[in-house]
């Protein structure tokens, strides 16, 4: 187990380093120049030589490799530089924004898990009957509706029409409900199919015939025999979906006026705010890697066949 974790951590570090190079290259090669934007902001874009002056001021005139090494050295110490847009240290903005995005993803992950298990089990318990068709229909709708539209519907339904939840803001659990639901819809739909299909496959397997021959009832078979068999598959799928929630957050956070990492990232991209974009990408990547590590460990715990290879 320890061996597994240490090996995976080493891989993760290498991956992170590689990813930072890719991020850096992408951001640097993106069109647009932050120096021009800053000059515009200061109303001096027409002054000859001013843009070059700004470039020198913020270090854009240095060679690329040096810029990368400088940035990496600072980032390793937790200093993500200064936002070109606000002039504030990125690392000062980050903790609160990470907390906001963390709240969004954690709540949505829990809702998506519960909802998908409920829908999947409903379908598996009454296969091809009404509950199954309803669950399948909901999954189809949920998986094919764009998230920004889901968010708008949520606001229209729960906030404007019924006035149950506030339509924006990050002020305590009541204000968290709509963003949570909005982000949870797509993963819940996808995962409910994973549960339903996994259970169906398990229910036609020989060990379930054995369980039937033992005189176990349908409920006992579903929960005791089939569920433990789909757990590793479900955890894998859940991990992917939770990773993707960072991307959904970029859309949903601005929609609900949440100052999360996704919102920060979007603002950074708009302003070619290299330091902010780079920091956000690194946070997303780290999150992905950590989620994957947790998923692998959880699968290790739930599947004795994989566990043996590492113990």
């Amino acid at each position: 187990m320890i061996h597994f974790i240490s090996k995976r951590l080493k891989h993760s570090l290498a991956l992170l380093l590689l990813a930072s190079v890719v991020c850096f290259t992408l951001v640097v090669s993106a069109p647009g120049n932050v120096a021009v934007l800053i000059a515009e902001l200061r109303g001096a874009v027409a002054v000859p030589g001013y843009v070059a002056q700004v470039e020198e001021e913020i270090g854009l005139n240095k060679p690329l490799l040096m810029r990368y090494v400088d940035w990496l050295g600072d980032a390793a110490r937790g200093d993500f530089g200064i936002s070109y847009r606000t002039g504030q240290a990125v690392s000062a903005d980050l903790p609160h924004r990470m907390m906001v995005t963390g709240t969004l993803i954690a709540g949505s992950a829990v809702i998506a898990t519960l909802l998908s298990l409920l829908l999947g089990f409903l379908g598996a318990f009454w296969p091809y009957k009404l509950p199954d068709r309803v669950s399948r229909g909901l999954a189809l709708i949920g998986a094919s509706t764009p998230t920004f539209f889901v968010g708008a519907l949520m606001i229209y339904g729960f906030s404007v029409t019924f006035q149950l939840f506030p339509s924006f803001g990050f002020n305590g659990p009541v204000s968290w409900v709509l963003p949570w639901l909005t982000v949870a819809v797509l993963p819940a739909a996808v995962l409910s199919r994973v549960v339903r299909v996994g259970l169906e496959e398990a229910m036609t397997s020989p060990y379930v015939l054995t369980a039937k021959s033992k005189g176990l009832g349908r409920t006992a078979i579903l929960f005791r025999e089939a569920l433990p068999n789909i757990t590793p598959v479900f955890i894998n799928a859940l991990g992917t979906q939770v990773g993707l929630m960072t991307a959904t957050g970029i859309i949903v956070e601005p929609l609900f006026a949440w100052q999360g990492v996704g919102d920060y990232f979007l603002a950074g991209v708009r302003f070619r705010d290299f330091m902010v974009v780079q920091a956000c990408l690194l946070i997303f990547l780290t999150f992905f890697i950590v989620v994957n590590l947790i998923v692998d460990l959880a699968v290790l715990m739930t599947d004795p066949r994989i566990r043996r290879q590492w113990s």
Partner: protein
Amino acid sequence: MHDEPLLSVSNLTVDLLTAKSAIRPVDGVSYTVRQGECLAIVGESGSGKTVMNFAPLGLMPTGVTTSLSGSVRFGGRELIGLPEPEIRKIRGKSIGFIFQDPMSALNPVRRIGRQIAEMAELHLDMTPRAAEARALELVKLVGISDPVARLRQYPHELSGGLRQRIVIATALAGEPKLLIADEPTTALDVTVQAQILRLLKDLQRRLNMAMVLITHDMGVVAGAADNIVVMYAARAAERGPVDKVLVTPRHPYTRGLINAIPKREDPIGSQFRGLPGIPPTLGAPFKGCAFAPRCDFAVPTCTASRPPLVPSADGSVFVACPVVNEGRAAA
């Protein structure tokens, strides 16, 4: 009714209705099994031997509609028409099942101890702790070394033979009166086959259970069974005591089967003797004897009407063959 057999099947017919087709894998079969007796059901793949035993007990895959007629009496109770919750109480408790492939018959992510113990909890009203103790007893009973460690292991950690012993231990956990073993040795190594068969036979005698042994291995039949039913294309071709049927087979199909067993006198490198032709597909209706197209002795009456299973010259053996029954000479 002390004399009533434990299991008495008469004129059982099973129709399977899927979305696209209807087939009849079991067509008017009758047999009985008494306490302490072992009945072998022999036939080639697709002859209906498994469906015949599983369908009346509700062990059919979901999505298939099963329609049963005839009678299956177990312990004085009619099983056909019994609602599923009632049949479920019989499964595992009064009737234990052993399956062909022990590699897939055990749940791969659950500990072996739990898989055995849950039977005792369910059917003998035991506490989890008492059930664990019973699981240990059973694992010892089926001759597994290091039983305490085995209970904590997962199926993939054991060999095929050990797993089949676990499956047997599970089947015994509810103290069944009848064991139904569906090709219990087919998926095992030849050397292990004999051990498992001996174990089954020994347990059956010691616990005074009845046993239905579904197989296509004549060696298994000779070693373990008291009576035999030979199935061909959903019907019983011949039925009787093993010593009589194996020594002097009457039905041409049974003869062909026994003749196909390689003999010690066969010269090395000689060809296998098989039955010519292929078995009919189920679902295609046929009027007469299903075996007639492959039979060396077939006469026109064979294809005219279905031959009934009637006593032969020796009253304990029943044969469904007009040629044998007309002449009474082939015996």
